[in-house]
């Protein structure tokens, strides 16, 4: 029994990571149908900055956490201004996919130049103790991912539902000209969405560096995996994305155990292709509402 629990728990913490990054995609895709293909690199940047501030800069944990998240958020603001706005020309314009990939290449190489290739883990305030639940073990610093993602999800939903910025975001997603008529510059709303998405990426990266090693080359694989989560869930459904992230993390652990570790990776992408054949808009995609809240 403890094996199944062990697999589930350890899969959960990895699933939280995927969910957090995929949430970043959904925020921007909902607003103007574009997303930042270098989101993975932003997460890497969050982790590297966190490690840099906490370990090398000896700043307190929470100060460096906030700094890392903010810097990545502001960077994403710049990326939107340069790499997205010019290319966002309606439904199936694709140039922004390429421009954000190019930005990703630049971020990764500059990070390599500044930070060097080494891997680093930021010591977590939760220490390295182990939490034992009925024989299954998980580090506190890993387990803390779950509540953090839960809190962020609730904040995001409240933001969509209650705050007027959230309302503006959903209105821009629905009808951009009407938003302009209502006296709100839709470009500003898109920029805010990108900053929030950058913030999420920064938080994801910083959180990740407390238990997993971050180095400059982890960005791309993480980004590709998180895109699959977003596609699986249907990009306009925050709750669906977190669920899909967790399911993916857990099923990876079980597939590894019961089928074979070799085919684990193919399972994820195979599932994505199956979904795209059967339900291209994603499993939890709510047809009608632009943002399922």
């Amino acid at each position: 029994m403890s094996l199944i629990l062990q697999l589930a728990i350890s899969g959960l913490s990895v699933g939280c990571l995927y969910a957090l990054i995929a949430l970043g995609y959904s925020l921007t895709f909902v607003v103007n149908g574009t997303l930042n293909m270098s989101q993975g690199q932003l997460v890497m940047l969050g982790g590297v900055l966190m490690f840099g501030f906490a370990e090398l800069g000896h700043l307190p944990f929470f100060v460096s956490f906030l700094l890392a998240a903010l810097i990545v958020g502001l960077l994403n603001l710049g990326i939107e201004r340069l790499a997205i706005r010019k290319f966002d020309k309606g439904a199936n314009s694709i140039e922004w996919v390429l421009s954000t990939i190019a930005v990703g290449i630049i971020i990764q190489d500059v990070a390599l130049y500044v930070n060097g290739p080494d891997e680093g883990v930021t010591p977590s305030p939760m220490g390295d103790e182990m939490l034992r639940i009925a024989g299954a073990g998980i580090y506190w610093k890993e387990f803390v991912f779950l509540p953090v993602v839960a809190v962020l999800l609730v904040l995001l939903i409240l933001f969509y539902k209650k705050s007027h910025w959230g309302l503006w975001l959903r209105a821009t997603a629905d009808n951009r000209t009407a938003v302009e008529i209502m006296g709100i510059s839709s470009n500003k709303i898109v920029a805010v969405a990108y900053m929030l998405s950058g913030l999420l990426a920064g938080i994801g990266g910083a959180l990740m560096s407390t238990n997993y090693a971050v180095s400059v080359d982890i960005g791309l694989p993480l980004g590709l995996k998180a895109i699959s989560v977003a596609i699986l869930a249907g990009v306009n459904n925050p709750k669906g994305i977190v669920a899909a992230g967790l399911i993916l993390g857990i099923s990876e652990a079980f597939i590894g155990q019961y089928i074979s570790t070799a085919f684990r990776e193919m399972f994820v992408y195979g599932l994505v292709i199956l979904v795209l054949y059967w339900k291209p808009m994603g499993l939890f995609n709510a047809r009608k509402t632009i943002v399922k809240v």
Partner: protein
Amino acid sequence: MNQLIERSAGYRAAAGWIAGLAAIGLLAAGPWMVDTYYLNLLFMIGIFVITCTGMNILIGYCGIVSIGHAGLMAIGAYMSSFLSTKYGLSFWSVVLIGMVVSLLIGSLIAIPTIRAGGVYLSMITIAFGVVIHEVLIRWDAFSGGPLGISGIAKPQIGGYTFDLKGMYLFVLVISAAALLLARNLRRSSWGRSMIATKENEIAAASLGIRKFAVQYAGFAISSVLAGLSGAIYAHANSFISPDTYNFQTSVQLVLIVILGGAGRVLGPVIGAVIIVFLPELLDMEKLRMALYGGIMFAVLFFLPKGIVGTLDSWLSPRMRRFVSINPRQASSKPEEAKALFASPVRAGGQPILVLEGIQKYFGGLHALKEVSLKVEAGTIHSLVGPNGAGKTTLLNVISGLYSSDQGHYTLRGQPLIPRSLSAVAELGIARTFQHSRLFKELSVLENVMTGLAKRAQSGLGASLLRLPGQLRSERLMEETSHALLDLIGYEGDRDMPASQLPYGHQRMVEIARALATAPSLLLLDEPAAGMTASEIEQLEQLLRKLVSQGLTVILIEHHMDFVQRVSDTVTVLDFGKIIGTGSPEQMLSDPRVIQAYLGAEEVAASAEH
């Protein structure tokens, strides 16, 4: 006069051919001029040109940006390497098998990709690319895992084994052939149909062009070329590994096409030269990839049309002014314009189209309420009514753009279910749109020729190789299109892109394009909007000429005087309901019509007018 035009056009084509052959001759002398380092780079350029010409067809013509085509190169490479190392088959047979398997896997990718569109399209291709990469790492028996396959036999003919020189010449021949195929495709109806579906899917469907079939052809060609170039590379370097074709390679392939200029035949050549030579020149150690990414971004930002595209748009206006082919005079014989469209024999007074009880809802809006209508063959039947009355909605329902919630249709006595635009177009119903939907990248003549795509559909193979049969049908299409342009009295330059047409002309060319599908029923949605008085006069003459040759026209128009002069019957729609059908005089003086239009209270005074 005409001979002079043909000859000058002939000169330009001949000059093109001579320049092409000279370039290939020079490149063919390469192996004896440069050392193996530059020869290897030229070889790599050839490999990229082969794949990227296929991708150019996919991105430039069909508008599908696939970021997973390195996977298809890998399939071609692994299939041929596996068969040649395991079973010792000759290079020539394994390459063919490799291409076939790439085609099969490419088709698997094509189905969801073409259906999805938008950002999902790129995600699907990325997912496929990554799955192929993972399979190659895992499936040791087939791919040798991460260490790949070594010692792959080099191609042989008779005694001669191909070394780098031989492989380079082989690649040169293949890439020249690939470029020729792309050029032929661009000049064929298949190429035009691809660009049509890319630019305006709805307009293409209304001409009877099925998006899936056309775009699948693009995908198939690109898959085969990718498989071929993958196989050649593997056998040339006698080693293949999963890392050779990963996500970064797919991005590189797309960049080559975009950098060169998507949709331009020579685009991939320029793109490949830059992408292959750039890393060799940037041999600084630090921030090399950052500069690479920077250049990629700069090209996307500053040169959206790519290098060849920007040069072309810079040079061609000058070229055209310099070598201005003066417009063809209207051909001297408009009267006996041969039956340009197969209009049926007057169906003895039986109505060509009957609509009964058509209902249509948009969410809460009840757009069409119980619409019933009879349209007599060989007449002009106008639909009038205030804005938002449902006129365009009715047209969209008849043409199959929207599906109606209720009601049934009969066309020439047979029951008609307007499933889709292309299906309805095949039944001989053509239409134009309220806002111009011309294909901007195609020239005026090519726009009209896309109307003929449905009828004169020669095979894909024939189009690629430009076989005599296909050439003849191209000539025929050109002739018919010129005749149609003469019919509508178009005097402007027929080779300039449609995007440069003045507004009025755009409407007329759109009508000519609709006529090219040889319809028996033509639906026109506000053709006169934005036209000058003289253009409206021309339109009136055209409609009379068409109807006299047996065509039936359903016309939506706001210019009441035009409607009055040209219509046989007028139907007035208001608030989704038909409030009257009859002769123009009867309808336009009917108090209910005026009330609907002017919104006057039951003011007796105005009714008398």
